[in-house]
């Protein structure tokens, strides 16, 4: 599903040139659950941004479902993104001014899904995440675990082929964290490809494969399954 080769990303300021990704190469197959690990500053987040089509690489190739997307313009990237990718963040990134229902509904609106169908799909996913009873609450009225469940719901509501999770349990206690990991595992079992950046060895054990990164390069790949 994803095939990146010699991927490069360099951040330049006036004085310093930082190589965030240094000729990074790996594949992710459809249906895989991959964890990306590594110390701070090793390029995990940069990688995730590029995989999520939020940023473009400075060099190398990025095939998404066989299409070269490395040099897509923003409009094309956005289009591909909203149809295929869901995001889960460490800090949830829910919109404070919107209710739970409205937050989850957002991706469907941008996909142009009609009102009644939207309502039904949002309700289904909220039900699945067991937060239906909170549908009219605002994010700040929820606990961290509940907020992340909403965020996951938002990530999956448009049935993405790929979910990118950026330390999804980073702001959660262990029981809430496990719950979220279980959700991701369930989604994976239903066929969704998941790439997750994490610091937690515990979380990484939910995945099939761990990619360890250092200084913008893959160091090792452990296959768990």
């Amino acid at each position, binding site marked *: 599903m994803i095939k990146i080769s010699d991927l490069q990303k360099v951040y330049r300021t006036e004085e310093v040139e930082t190589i965030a990704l240094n000729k990074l190469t790996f594949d992710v197959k459809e249906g895989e659950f991959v964890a990306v690990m590594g110390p701070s500053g090793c390029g995990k987040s940069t990688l995730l941004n590029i995989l999520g089509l939020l940023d473009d690489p400075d060099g190398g190739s990025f095939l998404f479902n066989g299409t070269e997307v490395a040099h897509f313009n923003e409009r094309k990237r956005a289009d591909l993104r909203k149809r295929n990718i869901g995001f889960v963040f460490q800090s949830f990134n829910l919109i404070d*001014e919107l209710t739970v229902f*409205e937050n989850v509904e957002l991706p469907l609106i*941008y996909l142009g899904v009609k009102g009644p169908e939207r309502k039904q799909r949002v309700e289904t996913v909220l039900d699945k995440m067991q937060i239906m009873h909170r549908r009219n609450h605002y994010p700040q009225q929820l606990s961290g675990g509940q907020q992340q469940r909403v965020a996951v719901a938002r990530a999956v509501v448009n049935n993405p082929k790929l979910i990118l999770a950026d330390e999804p349990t980073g702001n959660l206690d262990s029981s809430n964290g496990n719950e979220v990991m279980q959700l991701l595992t369930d989604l994976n079992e239903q066929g969704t490809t998941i790439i997750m950046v994490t610091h937690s060895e515990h979380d990484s054990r939910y995945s099939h494969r761990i990619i360890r990164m250092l200084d913008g390069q893959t160091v090792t790949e452990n296959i768990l399954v």
Partner: protein
Amino acid sequence: MHPSSFTFAWRNIRKYPAFSLINLGGLAIGIAASFVLLVYSQREMSCDRQFRDHDRIARIGTDFFNMGGFAPSQPFLREFLRASCKDVQYATALMSGDLMSVRTQQQDRAYTAIRAYYIDSVFFKVFSYPVASGAVPQAGLAPGQTILMEDEARKFFGSQDPIGRTIYVAKENQPYQIVAVLKSSFQKSHLDPRLFLPLPATAIGKFDGNWSSASLYNYVKLTPQGSMAGLQRWLDRLREKVIYPTSGAIMSFAQWQASPKNVKFTIQPLADIYFHSNLNFELSPGGNLTQVKLLGAIGLFLILLAIINYVNLVTARSSVRSREIGIKKTFGASRVRLGRQMLLESLFFSLLAMGLAVVLIRGILFAYKWATGIPLTGPMSLTPMHYLWLLVFSLVVGMLAGVYPAIYLTAFKPILSIRSLAMQSGKGNGRVRNVLVIFQFMVAAGLVFSSFVIYAQWQFMQNKDKGLSTQGVLTINNLYTMGKRTAAFRQVVEQQAQVVSTSLCERAPASNDIVMYTYKTPAMSRPMTIPSFPVDARYIQTLGLHLTSGRNFDKDLVSDTNSLILNESAVAALGLFNPVGSTINGSERVIGVVKDFNYASFRQKIGPVVLRYSQTGCMLAVKISGGHVNAFLDQLNAKAKEFTGGEPLEINWLDDNFAKLAEKEKLLGEAITFFTALAILLATLGLIGLTLFTIERRTREIGIRKVLGANVDQILRLVSRDFIRLAVIAALVAFPISWWLMNRWLEDFAYRIHVGVGTFFLAGAVIVMIAWSVVSLLTIRAAMANPIHSLRTE
């Protein structure tokens, strides 16, 4: 259902009430004030343009003896125009009556001080007044018929139908039957009709060859093919073929044209009269184009200030918004879509502001009238059409205010927006915001400076040495009601303890009267027309004129009937080196010289004036001393009744006459001060918003600094420094521009103030003080708070 941009905006308002209130309030004030000024300017600029074919209508004024031009012209001009001017379709003559009383029942209480227009049969063919009820007779008003304006009809008859009713006009209770009522209009006109009466045939009279008279206002409507140039050629021919021959002069036409006996005409296109005509005996005081332009510009500035406030406050919060936008982008929202959301939000905002503005407009109009005593847009209320404009105006404002935020806020790359939020409130954005803040302060500083200058000039005009003493001087103008008993009345007046001196005269300074004579010294080849004051021997004393050489008139010297006293300018104009004792016009002798005194205008230099000895006069000037003026006037009026046959005395105070001369400047000063205050309010609101935002953003920084030992004073300086620097830059940019503009305005005045360094400092200090106090007041709480709290909440 997903919330629309409107509900989203509404929730935003509720979540940040202080910000939103400032933003909404600023936008509402801006919309209301600039809309008021828009309506005002539009009304002023379109004065008289509501008449059908206004570009084919003109007034013909005249001038003779170089008296300075008259708005009315010769009564029989109309007949000449009708008989032979091919360019003219209709010629109408209008007479403006004296103020008089109107009764609805013969024995009823009278409505007083109403001025009638006496019109001929084609008046309404020239001026298209819409009819409210009844019908304007095709053949013109028959004797005994009248037409009223709507306002008057309502005043006289309330809600009853006035058509067919009778009103009784003037002292004689002359009955007139109402045949039509005309619609009062929001539009402005230099004509200010209350009631129309038929023009009596005697007003036109028989052609007597006397072209030195101006009693009727002559208006023409050109034929569709006609032109003003054609009319001008016809008037030129009239002068050469008709007027010049009847003058009986032995000079050539060319000589006649250069002589004071020459009769001239001015064609004034209807739409030009209001702003550009400044002739004697205008039907109504003209407009002040400077004021309209200035207020129009202020209106533009006010709405710009409000839009800038909106843009600043919205983009200042970009770090908050960028998160929302980043998330939306991540989940697939396109930039166009987000931009549209921003625009819809600002439209929603401007509509809310418009709601507030509707109320504020009333408030502003009321406050303006309260502060200046004069309504800004006339007595009429705003029409439904105006509210439609207001809607369009508000939407345009909303669009303009939304464009920059829509472009700026949606440009964030989502990746940047979601991560490291605080870091990137954008240097570029900060710079734009600084420029906008500077612009706001520039407008405020420029306006403060300008209003200081205008106010100072007005003060200067008020306090300038006029060359005479106006204090406690009044004139009694209706001596004609006393006939031969004037002298006896004067004796009674002089017996009053408070009366210092009285003078019988034909003319008072700063009044509407015109008296002109021609003067010629032996050395001059051609006589010169000079404004003259026929006065008695007590005039100089009563008005406090300063005799600089020679002597006053002496009523016991028979020879003084041929004596003149000149002012200094007249001495210069006539080229006299030893004025006292010189002879003018062959037999008139100069016996004294007075210091120049102001008598006509503050704008122009004091011109030559000649005092002529006269033992009769149409008015009595009275100088009184001491207080209790009202009691004195009551007493005087009581005593006067037996002389005037019951009519009250018509009294003018000289002080009031002079105040009227400076009225335009006073109004201009008040108008600009009023709207300057609004501009400052707007700029202050914007500053409050930005300061609140800065404090919010820097709370943590302030806390850390305090922990490290900063005191309140240092914190205040930290926050206010940036804003004060902006205010100073703004003042430095604004002052040269407004200084230049104000100097151009001052150039119109012969006697004007010099704009000194003090004015700059004062205006600068006002602006910096405002900025400093706003910022300090808001910061002080944050600066005094215990840092533990701000650090803990992070």
